[in-house]
């Protein structure tokens, strides 16, 4: 049976099936919590745990799917290109939003970690949680964080952002698609962007720009966070 589970088709089929269940539930219930990504992740983990299937077996297929993350991020360039006139017009607000958002993200992560009684190493691991994994993984060890904890926080932030985006848009009374896209991309990187794309092309493009800019700005911020002597 193990040979079946470690075939790449197992991970791929399980991912597609659970994601389709998620799409079906989202359509049926129209609830924000019925997010296809969230449901697929929870169901996949449940299946792996239930049948004692090692993550490595799932990843035979999972890694094939992950390959497409790079190209999917790259083709955001197309959305940005088609929204170029809007971006030119709103460059200043977009820049200001990503700078303020990134500072608030790092600052509030620091203060809240302290408030919740987390130690220095865990705090450092959470500082860069709002940028996508490759950015965060490059920064985290430099400022004294544990990469595994950072990855977990980044992924949780992304999924939370994708699930929460519609609710937060309502809460902050955001109607402008530019504002929506930048807020989603800055607070929940590429995973949030995948949700922004479903809201509209402007939202997707702005979220894509914001995820890149927030990542770069956070790299800059991290230069000031490096602990001397570590």
């Amino acid at each position, binding site marked *: 049976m193990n040979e079946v589970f470690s075939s790449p088709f197992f991970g791929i089929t399980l991912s597609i099936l659970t994601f389709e269940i998620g799409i079906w539930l989202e359509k049926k219930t129209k609830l924000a919590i019925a997010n296809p990504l969230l449901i697929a992740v929870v169901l996949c983990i449940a299946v792996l745990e239930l049948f004692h299937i090692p993550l490595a077996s799932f990843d035979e297929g*999972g890694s094939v799917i992950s390959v497409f993350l790079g190209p999917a*991020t790259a083709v955001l*360039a197309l*959305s940005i*290109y088609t929204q170029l006139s809007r971006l030119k017009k709103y460059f200043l607000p977009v820049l200001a*939003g990503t700078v303020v958002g990134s500072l608030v*993200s790092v600052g*509030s992560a620091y203060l809240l970690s302290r408030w919740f009684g987390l130690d220095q190493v865990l705090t450092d691991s959470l500082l860069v949680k709002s940028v996508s994994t490759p*950015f965060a993984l490059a920064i985290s060890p430099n400022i004294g964080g544990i990469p595994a904890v950072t990855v*977990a926080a980044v992924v949780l932030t992304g999924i939370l952002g994708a699930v929460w985006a519609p609710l937060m848009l309502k809460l902050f009374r955001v109607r402008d698609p530019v504002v929506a896209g930048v807020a989603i991309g800055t607070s929940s990187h590429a995973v949030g962007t995948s949700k922004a794309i479903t809201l509209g092309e402007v939202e997707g493009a702005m979220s894509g720009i914001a995820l890149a800019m927030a990542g770069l700005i956070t790299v800059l911020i991290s230069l000031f966070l490096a602990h001397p002597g570590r």
Partner: protein
Amino acid sequence: MLQIGLVFGVCLLGQIVSVLLPVPIPGSVISMVLLFLLLFFKAVHVDRIRQKADFLLKNMAFFFVPAGVGIISQFSEIRAHLLALLGVVVLTTFFTFGSTALTVRGVMKLQELGRSRKRKPRPLA
């Protein structure tokens, strides 16, 4: 096939540049910039990648499923602090979202104010 080859080729190039750069910028972000430049300078026409780009963008959330499932491998490291960690994640995401949205909206309004003022004729400073 040529479409997907072009996109993957740009990604490979982005990866190469990412490794060569002294600052940590992910290959996917560099690929995004490279592809944008190719489109901007009309080296690649939009229609040539439109179809595959739409496929990738439409299914982007799906491509994150394995990354999400991967969290279970970090579970032993985070389980002791799971609640605090979730608290930090939830609240910072909320604050980041709010502060970004309010800033973008505020600066947009300032910009409009500036534009409407400019329309009135006045001597150049």
